[in-house]
C-alpha cells in the first residue's frame, strides 16, 4: 500500500536550454484524491502532465507513480497505471470507430482478443456511448469524443487518470457532461484524478489544488486555502470563484460571511444575515 499515488521530487525540465520550463518541482498526490492543477497558459501545467506519463524525458528529479520509479525501462508498466485524456478531442481519437478507439489501448497492452468486446462494451456503457459504438469520429460531438477518450482510458483500468484541460475545447453542454462524468468516476475514491483546468468551479469541487506559476509550485492546499490567497492569485493572473469575489465585496461593506464555496449556501447565509437585521 502506498499512500501517495504520485510523488514528485525536484523535477526539472526545459524545452529550450535557456529557459527552465519546470524548475525543481516537488509535490505529492494522495491516492484516491481529486487534485486540480491550475496556472495560466504557459505556466508549465501540461508539461508536468506529460512528464508524469513519461511522454517527455525529465532533465532532473524523480517521479514515482503508484510506488514505482519512472524510468525508461518501465515506461510500459507505468502507462498501465496512469492514463491521460488530452485537450483536443480530434487529435486523440485514433480508431476509425468508437469501438476501435477503445480497443486501441487494449491492443497495445496485449489484452486477449476474446476479452476485448466485453471490456469495450462495459466501458462504453460507463460513459453512455453504447449506441455510438460503431460510429465514426466525424459523426460525434466534441463532448462525445472526450467521453470515448475517457472510456478508452478507463478500459485500461488505470489507478490514476490525468485530465489535461479535457473540457477546454468543449461547449457548455460538453463541459457539463465531462465534469459530471469525472466527478462520478471519482465518487468511490478508488481512482486518483488529476485535472489540469481553468474552470474555477471545477477547482472548487476538488480535494486539493496545486498552483503552478512560471514552472514552479506557487501554492498547494485545499480550494479554500488557495482561494484565500487573493493577492497572490491575482499576481499570477488567476481567477477566484464568484462567491469569494462576493465575499470580498461584502467585506468592504462591513458584512462578513463564512468561507463557504457552495453558492447555494452562501446565498442562504447572505439572506439570513440581511433578514435577521
Amino acid at each position, binding site marked *: 500500500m502506498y499512500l501517495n499515488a504520485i510523488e514528485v521530487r525536484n523535477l526539472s525540465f526545459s524545452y529550450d536550454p535557456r529557459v527552465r520550463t519546470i524548475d525543481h518541482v516537488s509535490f505529492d498526490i494522495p491516492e484516491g484524491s481529486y487534485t486540480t492543477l491550475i496556472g495560466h497558459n504557459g505556466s508549465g501545467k501540461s508539461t508536468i502532465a506529460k512528464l508524469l506519463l513519461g511522454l517527455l524525458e525529465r532533465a532532473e528529479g524523480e517521479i514515482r507513480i503508484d510506488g514505482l520509479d519512472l524510468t525508461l525501462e518501465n515506461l510500459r508498466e507505468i502507462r498501465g497505471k496512469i492514463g491521460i485524456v488530452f485537450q483536443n478531442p480530434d487529435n486523440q481519437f485514433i480508431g476509425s470507430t468508437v469501438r476501435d478507439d477503445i480497443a486501441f489501448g487494449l491492443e497495445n497492452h496485449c489484452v486477449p482478443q476474446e476479452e476485448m468486446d466485453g471490456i469495450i462494451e462495459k466501458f462504453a456503457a460507463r460513459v453512455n456511448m453504447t449506441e455510438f459504438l460503431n460510429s465514426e469520429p466525424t459523426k460525434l460531438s466534441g463532448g462525445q469524443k472526450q467521453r470515448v477518450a475517457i472510456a478508452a482510458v478507463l478500459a485500461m483500468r488505470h489507478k490514476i487518470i490525468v485530465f489535461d484541460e479535457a473540457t477546454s475545447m468543449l461547449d457548455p453542454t460538453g463541459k457539463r457532461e465531462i465534469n459530471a462524468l469525472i466527478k462520478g468516476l471519482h465518487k468511490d475514491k478508488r481512482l486518483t484524478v488529476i485535472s489540469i483546468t481553468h474552470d474555477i468551479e471545477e477547482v472548487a469541487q476538488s480535494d486539493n489544488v496545486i498552483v503552478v506559476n512560471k514552472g514552479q509550485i506557487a501554492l498547494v492546499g485545499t480550494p479554500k486555502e488557495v482561494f484565500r490567497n487573493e493577492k497572490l492569485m491575482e499576481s499570477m493572473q488567476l481567477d477566484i470563484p464568484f462567491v469569494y469575489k462576493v465575499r470580498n465585496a461584502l467585506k468592504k461593506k462591513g458584512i462578513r460571511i463564512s468561507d463557504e464555496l457552495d*453558492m447555494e449556501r452562501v446565498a442562504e447565509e447572505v*439572506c439570513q444575515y440581511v433578514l435577521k437585521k
Partner: protein
Amino acid sequence: MPIRFEKVDFEYSPGTPFAFKALKNIDLELAMGKMTAIIGATGSGKTTLVQHLNALLLPTAGKVTVLDHEIKAGQKFTQVKELRHNVGLVFQFAEYQLFEETVLKDVCFGPMNFGVSEADAIEIARRSLLTVGIPEKSFEKSPLEMSGGQKRRVAIAGILAMKPKILVLDEPTAGLDPQGAESMMELFRKVNKNSGITVLIVTHNMEHVLQYCDDVVVMEKGELLMQTDIETFFENYEYMEKANINPPAIIRFKELLKKNGLEIASDVLDIDSLASAVARRCKK
C-alpha cells in the same frame, strides 16, 4: 438598418442525401455600432449565420443586406471583394490562418489583398498590432515563435488592418485561459467603443455576454429564437433554464437570493453594486 436578413434559408449540399437545412426562415435586423452576442447550442446555426455576412455562404432562399450590399438567393453576387473588405470575419482558432514569415507581413496580407499599397499596409499593420497589444519587438518574429494567445491576437490584427466597418468573431476566446479571454474581450470592447466598429460575437460564454455585449441573438436548431438587449435577456431566468443556457454566476446568485427571500433589482449586474444593494437592505 445596415444588416438585415429577410426570410433567409440556408441548406448544405442541397439535392443530395446529405442535404441539411442549417438556417430556417431567418428574419433579423442588427443595428450598427453595437456589440451583439450570438448564442445558441452547438449546431444551432450560429456559424452558418455569420458566414452569410461576408458572402462565404450565400442564402438558398431569402435576402441578406449588409451595408449597401444586397445578396439575394439564386442571384449572382458580384460585390464579393467590396463586401469582404467591409466585413472582417475572424474564425474560430484564428491563429491557424497565419502563414507569412513575419508577424508584420501576415498582418499586411489582408489590406494588400484589398489593394492597399505596401507602404500604407505596413503603417496600418503596425497600428493594428499595437492595438491588439503586440509589442514592436515582436513585429519581425515568425508567428510560429509566439504563444497561442499572441498568435490569435496577430490573426485579429490581420483582420482589423482591413479596416472593416463590421467585425465578426466566431468564438474568439475558445481555448484561452480566463485572463487571456478577459483581455481579449476588453480589446473588442475597445475596438467597438473607440473606432465605432460594429462587433458581432459568436460565443458560449454567458459571463462575457453579460459583461461586454449590448444585445443578444439566440439561435436554436437553425431558427432565430430571440433578439433582445442584455438586461431583458438576463431578467428571464426561467427562459434561460428552458433554453439550456447556463446563466452568468451573478444571475444565478441573484436567483438563489430571491429564492431565500431577498430580491435584488434587475439592473444590478456586477458584484460591487450587488454588495451595495445587500448593504442597503441591511440598513433598512
